[in-house]
């Protein structure tokens, strides 16, 4: 009975973490992935893995950091697979009309597509989830210097897009 109570307590603890962090993770990883469906799938898979190991993960100081790290890994792996897929599609002689863009709307999504997966993830975690560089580095299993490099590259590309849009408007 005590064990059952302990199990319920663990489940409650897990669900509390899920309610507190799921939305933020999905929002940031949606920006990183360019797809809410992909981001939600990665985050849910990360939570499933945490649930299976919750007796251990739940004792961490920041269980959400573990979940985020797993989700980021899944997302980067997915992005790399999709990049190979996209390159293979690009070699096929198919004429694909790009969707028309609104000249009054900044095309940040198009600019994000020109970033590498690591640049996108770094930018999403830093700008969307408001994580400090140290936590971004921990989530991406990179050094802070490497994260800063990716952030610098991402910001330069995205900044160019924003500046070009501002010039177009003016």
């Amino acid at each position, binding site marked *: 009975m005590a064990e059952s109570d302990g199990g319920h307590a663990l489940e409650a603890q897990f669900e509390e973490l899920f309610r507190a962090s*799921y*939305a933020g993770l999905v929002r940031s990883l949606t920006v990183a992935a360019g797809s809410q469906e992909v981001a939600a799938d990665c985050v849910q898979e990360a939570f499933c893995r945490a649930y299976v190991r919750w007796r251990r993960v739940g004792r961490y100081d920041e269980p959400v950091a573990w979940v985020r790290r797993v989700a980021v890994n899944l997302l980067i792996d997915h992005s790399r697979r999709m990049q190979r897929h996209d390159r293979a599609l690009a070699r096929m002689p198919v004429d694909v009309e790009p969707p028309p863009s609104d000249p009054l709307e900044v095309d940040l999504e198009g600019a994000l597509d020109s970033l590498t997966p690591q640049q996108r993830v770094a930018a999403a975690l830093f700008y*969307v989830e408001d994580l400090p560089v140290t936590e971004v580095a921990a989530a991406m299993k990179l050094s802070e210097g490497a994260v800063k490099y990716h952030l610098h590259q991402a910001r330069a590309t995205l900044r160019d897009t924003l500046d070009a849009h501002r010039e177009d408007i003016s």
Partner: protein
Amino acid sequence: MSPNEFDDGELRGGLQDLAPDVDVRSALDALRPRARRARTRHRARLAAGVTAGILLVGGGAVALTNTSNDKVSITPATSPKIADDTSTTTVPPPTTPTTANPDTTSPTAAPTDATTPDSSPPGAPSDSRQLPTQSTAPTSPTTDHGRGNDTAPDTEVRTYSSAGGSIDVHVAGGVLMLDDVRPAGGYDEAADKRVERDDRIRVEFERKDGNHQGQPPRVEVRIINGELVQTPVDPSS
């Protein structure tokens, strides 16, 4: 977080606008069955791993046991050939002539055939199986030719003769028995030359005056293929 070179409010706002609203409640409802399935699979993998480990350890133990059994079974693998030889030697030959003719038992008969009967106590088959491990087995066919599979039905007394005399033998219970020795005139039975076994009897004669020209006369009778046969005597045997 202190302001740094990456702080960019416009960029932050633009990216956060791209982030969608998320329904946490429905996501949690969708997660519960998925998480339970994941936990079930995880436990199944753990159980499979533990089972595989147990099977591996158990299989290793069985393999070790079989290895040691193989070592034991080597002895039976070589024993049948020897068991046939010893099967007929489990009946100790010296006992029969001793009871039949206690006075004529030759002390020299035992050493010629000593390897088998002396080392195999009667009524101890386990010991007789161990005999083949000794190096005496190859000598048995040369010294005990034809005796291994030869058994003869009981016979009446028969007489076999040579220049030095004659002997009377008969078969009783598959054992060749010496009934009488009759030296010819001028001959006596040679002392310490008689051989009496279950399937072979040999008696050597010598002249009373000791003057022999060539080989002394002998009479040897064997059971060969169930028949009593007088065989030529090998002087060297």
